[in-house]
């Protein structure tokens, strides 16, 4: 029995008449590592925003058998939905350790909150080790390098104990080696959680995606494995313009990113 899956039904988001996400149906199972790709303005980030409660939406967005829509952001987060942001958003004036400790603590009692933190909670220590920031535990997050901030955000997602993880361009600005590590980490995490990644980096996508959904103008254009999506003429048309194209052409274009 696998209750932890994300199922979007007829999900629609509109801003004053502009439909950013247009009747999207989408299912991501536990264990999947789903990449959302598509040109700018396709509605990828808005889709994540809708699921995490940031923008109002209609339709259904079920996770673990419960509809997420209409709930407050922090309630959704407490239901095990975690996300990161396009530009890494961490608490710049707090240290790495404090950032992670806060991320780990939404379930803490008032009494615990009113006391000083003693030592480092094991889950936080583990996360710091995983994202390689142990040495920088007492460093303010504001002075971390860009890539380190993104790692920290992923670390926060880990300690948050989320069962649905949505990452918005997690490897933008990372070096090749860092991307590699991130990819492996995501693979590992996705073994027993549900992971959705919005990404423009096609190399990264091809290397680590377990499945892909292509969004275009708010609609699902194509869905399937990396190979299936690359072969889809509709996708080629969106990325290359109308006309027929070879799979090689598509691979080159999609591979180089958009």
């Amino acid at each position, binding site marked *: 029995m696998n209750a932890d899956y994300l199922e979007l039904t007829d999900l629609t988001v509109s*801003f*004053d008449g*502009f439909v*950013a996400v247009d009747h999207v149906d989408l299912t991501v199972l536990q264990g999947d590592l789903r990449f959302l790709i598509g040109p700018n303005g396709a509605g990828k980030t*808005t889709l994540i925003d809708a699921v995490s409660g940031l*923008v109002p939406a209609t339709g259904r967005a079920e996770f673990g058998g419960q509809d997420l829509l209409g709930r407050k952001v922090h309630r959704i987060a407490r239901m095990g939905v975690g996300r990161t942001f*396009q*530009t890494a958003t961490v608490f710049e004036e707090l240290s790495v350790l404090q950032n992670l400790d806060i991320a780990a603590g939404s379930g803490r009692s008032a009494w615990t909150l009113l006391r000083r933190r003693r030592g480092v909670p094991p889950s936080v220590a583990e996360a710091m080790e995983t994202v390689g920031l142990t040495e920088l535990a007492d460093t303010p997050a504001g002075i971390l390098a860009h890539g380190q901030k993104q790692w920290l955000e992923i670390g926060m997602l880990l300690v948050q104990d989320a069962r649905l993880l949505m990452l918005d361009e997690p490897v933008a600005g990372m070096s090749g080696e860092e991307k590699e590590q991130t990819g492996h980490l995501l693979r590992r995490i996705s073994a027993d959680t549900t992971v959705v990644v919005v990404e423009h980096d096609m190399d990264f996508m091809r290397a680590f995606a377990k499945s892909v959904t292509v969004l275009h103008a708010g609609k699902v254009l194509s869905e399937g494995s990396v190979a299936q999506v690359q072969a889809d003429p509709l996708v080629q048309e969106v990325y290359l313009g109308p006309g027929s194209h070879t799979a090689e052409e598509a691979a080159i274009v999609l591979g180089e990113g958009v």
Partner: protein
Amino acid sequence: MDVLVTQVFNGLSGGSILLLAALGLALTFGQMGVINMAHGEFIMAGAYTAFVMQQVLGAAGLSLLVSLPMAFLVGGLLGVLLEATLLRRMYHRPLDTLLVTWGVSLILQQLARDVFGTAGVDVPAPGWLSGPVEVLGFSFPRSRLFILALAIAAVVALSLALRLTPLGRRIRATVQNRQLAESSGISTRRTDVLTFFIGSGLAGVAGVVLTLMGSISSNLGTSYIVDAFLVVIVGGIGQIKGAVIAAFVLGTVQSWVEYSTTASIAKVILLALVVAFLQARPQGIFQVRTRSLA
């Protein structure tokens, strides 16, 4: 019936005064995010400009007309001075602008006391603006009709300017997306300065017409500043039309509640209503729905 006509007019009139006081704020606070507590003192500066012009020119009618552009200039220049010396370095921390400009307003008030004396001064209204005018058996004060007309003219001029002139387009572009505006060759520095000039200039104009209504003293600004901010907040940020509606609604509510209760209670009820309204619509009457990409 008498009461109805009188109070509807008083509501409109009160609203037009609020609107003139708040219009400049709708620009500087609404569009730029600067909480300018010295806006009230710019109003005061406009009123004193009218006083000085009258001392210089003598004739009440002429000096009033000359005062309007002069006060716009005086208020605008004060605004530019403030923007260039202090506020430009503070756009990333809007709340602190409140405290800085509060300090500025204290200094301007004391300056007014030291220059013009602590006692209030008077700017006599020109003959064609004093006394009432009879319409269908109802008498309306000419000065209030003048203010109402001026407020409408100011709103029309401002929205046309924002819509049609290149400067207006630049202002709107900068407000909507600073980086994009910059990269498309708009000098956002110059736009900021100009926006502040216009917003503060409008405060100066408001000051001139307030000389028709009440006392001209160093406290003039403090009487209007909180109300003006409430208008902008209720109207919704970045919305001229929101400010217009909010001003007239607040003016009408104030005059009706005041009529049926007392002025003190009306003031308190008005504030309570604003708080309650913001509970229902935290973004004001008009909410700007945008999807910021960045």
